[in-house]
């Protein structure tokens, strides 16, 4: 296992200057952590942790200037559970500021570049974690999901990314963005490793009153008996490499003996509109705590209100301010019912339609992203174009169901493509089984072979 760590250290040292996946990494510290690591289910496993998940004694920046040199005095529950199982934190990874973004271009510490093509983004907001796993810097990583922030960068970086059921993994120690949507997620190269990490960190936590007390039970599922269905609306207007690869993936599943039908969930077309009201409204409340008083950067001010206004004005980046303002607007008097109230009703409609789909099918299928990884700077001038990157991923966050992104092929230019599988609430076992079955597909194998050769 120590040979494993030395290989990770070599990869981080040689590639991080270009890729900027890690914000905090120290080789000596990693070796010390590794030698302290206990025996257990994940003995001596190096884990990269997204920098909005607190690790005691390490910096947590959330990709922002506003937290200054903040060092958490406690571990996130997911981190303490990993440590108790013998794993250790190898470093903290880059992200869009406060997890707001789909490209990691909104980080105050520079973009994370895609290991497959450094002129392109690694995706976001968990771009650093995705790039780290793709580039061989760590075998697994933690990220966070609010609208797709694990699945989308997993797709862009040719790795596996899981968003669990809302409430399945404790949010204690995950810096809050949108509390009804947030979940910690897992990046890995195989379904088995994802499941191994998931089963250690998932489960009820008294420190998170929204965590489910339903037991975490790994149960084998026969993937050949799963009833799959393609979400019809995901195909509307879809063309090019993403469409072709999606159809190839479906053909593989059918050829393996699986039944793949089609189902309509019309409300998914409204998911981005619902998401950008609900998530931003909740964010405007959750980010109120960054006020220059108890931690982080403090601006010069002669009154308390000036302290808040100046610290926040100076400390937050443009995207964060934009979203706080959208959220404040949606919750403000005179607009609350028309925007937030309306969005919650459409969200309830989405939940009902997903429930109807899951009464007939076990796993729903869509591409993970509408495009292959785009170039750095390509979408950063148009916030709305960037938001539409989440079009396939946001529905699962809004409805609370688990979903997994799996590598499914490459474009002719050699860029990763990805298939998304969605299961009902607490249906992670079906996702692990379906993902493992999909590992045999030519598309997955091609990505795995090529990824091993990434310089």
């Amino acid at each position, binding site marked *: 296992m120590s040979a494993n760590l030395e290989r990770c250290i070599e990869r981080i040292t040689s590639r991080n200057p270009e890729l900027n996946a890690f914000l905090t990494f120290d080789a000596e510290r990693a070796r010390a952590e590794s030698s302290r690591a206990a025996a257990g289910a994940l003995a001596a496993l190096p884990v990269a942790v997204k920098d909005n998940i607190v690790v005691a004694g390490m910096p947590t920046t959330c990709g922002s200037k506003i937290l*200054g040199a*903040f*060092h958490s*005095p406690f571990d996130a529950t997911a981190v303490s559970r990993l440590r108790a199982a013998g794993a250790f934190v190898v470093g903290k990874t880059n992200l869009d500021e406060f997890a707001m973004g789909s490209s990691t271009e909104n980080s105050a510490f520079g973009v994370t570049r895609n290991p497959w093509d450094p002129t392109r983004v690694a995706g976001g907001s968990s771009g650093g974690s995705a790039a780290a796993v793709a580039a061989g810097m760590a075998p697994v990583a933690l990220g966070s999901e609010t609208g797709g922030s694990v699945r989308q960068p997993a797709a862009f970086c040719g790795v596996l990314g899981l968003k669990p059921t809302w409430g399945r993994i404790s949010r204690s120690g995950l810096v809050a963005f949108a509390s*009804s949507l947030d979940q910690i997620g897992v990046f890995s190269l195989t379904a088995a490793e994802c499941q191994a990490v998931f089963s250690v960190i998932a489960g009820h936590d*008294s420190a998170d*009153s*929204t965590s489910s007390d339903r037991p975490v039970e790994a149960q084998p599922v026969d993937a050949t008996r799963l009833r799959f269905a393609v979400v019809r609306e995901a195909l509307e207007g879809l063309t090019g490499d993403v469409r072709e690869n999606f159809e190839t993936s479906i053909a593989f599943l059918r050829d393996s003996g699986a039944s793949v039908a089609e189902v309509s969930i019309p*409300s998914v077309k*409204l998911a*981005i*509109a*619902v998401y*950008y009201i609900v998530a931003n409204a909740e964010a*405007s409340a959750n980010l*109120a705590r960054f006020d*220059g008083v*108890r*931690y*982080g*950067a*403090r601006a010069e*001010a*002669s*009154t*308390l*209100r*000036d*302290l808040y*206004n*100046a610290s*926040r*004005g*100076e400390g*937050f980046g443009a995207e964060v*301010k*934009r979203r*706080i*303002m*959208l959220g*404040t*607007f949606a919750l*403000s008097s005179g*607009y609350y019912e*028309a*925007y937030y*109230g*309306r*969005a*919650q*009703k*459409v*969200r*309830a*409609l989405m*939940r*009902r339609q997903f429930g109807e789909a899951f009464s007939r099918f076990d796993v729903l299928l869509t591409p993970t992203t509408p495009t292959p990884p785009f170039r750095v700077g390509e979408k950063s001038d148009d*916030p*709305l174009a960037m*938001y539409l990157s989440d079009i396939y991923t946001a529905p699962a966050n809004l409805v609370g169901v688990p979903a997994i992104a799996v590598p499914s092929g490459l474009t002719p230019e050699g860029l990763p493509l990805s298939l998304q599988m969605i299961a009902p609430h607490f249906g992670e076992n079906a996702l692990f089984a379906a993902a493992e079955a999909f590992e045999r597909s030519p598309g997955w194998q091609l990505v795995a072979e090529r990824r091993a050769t990434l310089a």
Partner: protein
Amino acid sequence: MTTITPDEVRRIAALANLRLAESEVPRLTAELAKIVAYVEQLNDAEVDEPGREGEATSLALFEDAPGPSLPVDGVAANAPEFRDGFFVVPPVLTGES
């Protein structure tokens, strides 16, 4: 159809305790207007759901008994200004109270 005006942007910024430079206002006005126009498609959706989505189905309670909390020195180490167990801040108001 809600129109987002520069004055509206200044009002929202004040509510959100965000100091904006005047030079930021035109860009933000245009960006917010475009996004708000996009989300207005929700008005076309036919919904009669009660809309109590996201409500907790049960309230988790715990014993009201003292237990460990964050170590004060860990908290103080991150504070911009901390004295005698208090966070030090400027006065709420200037001049006479």
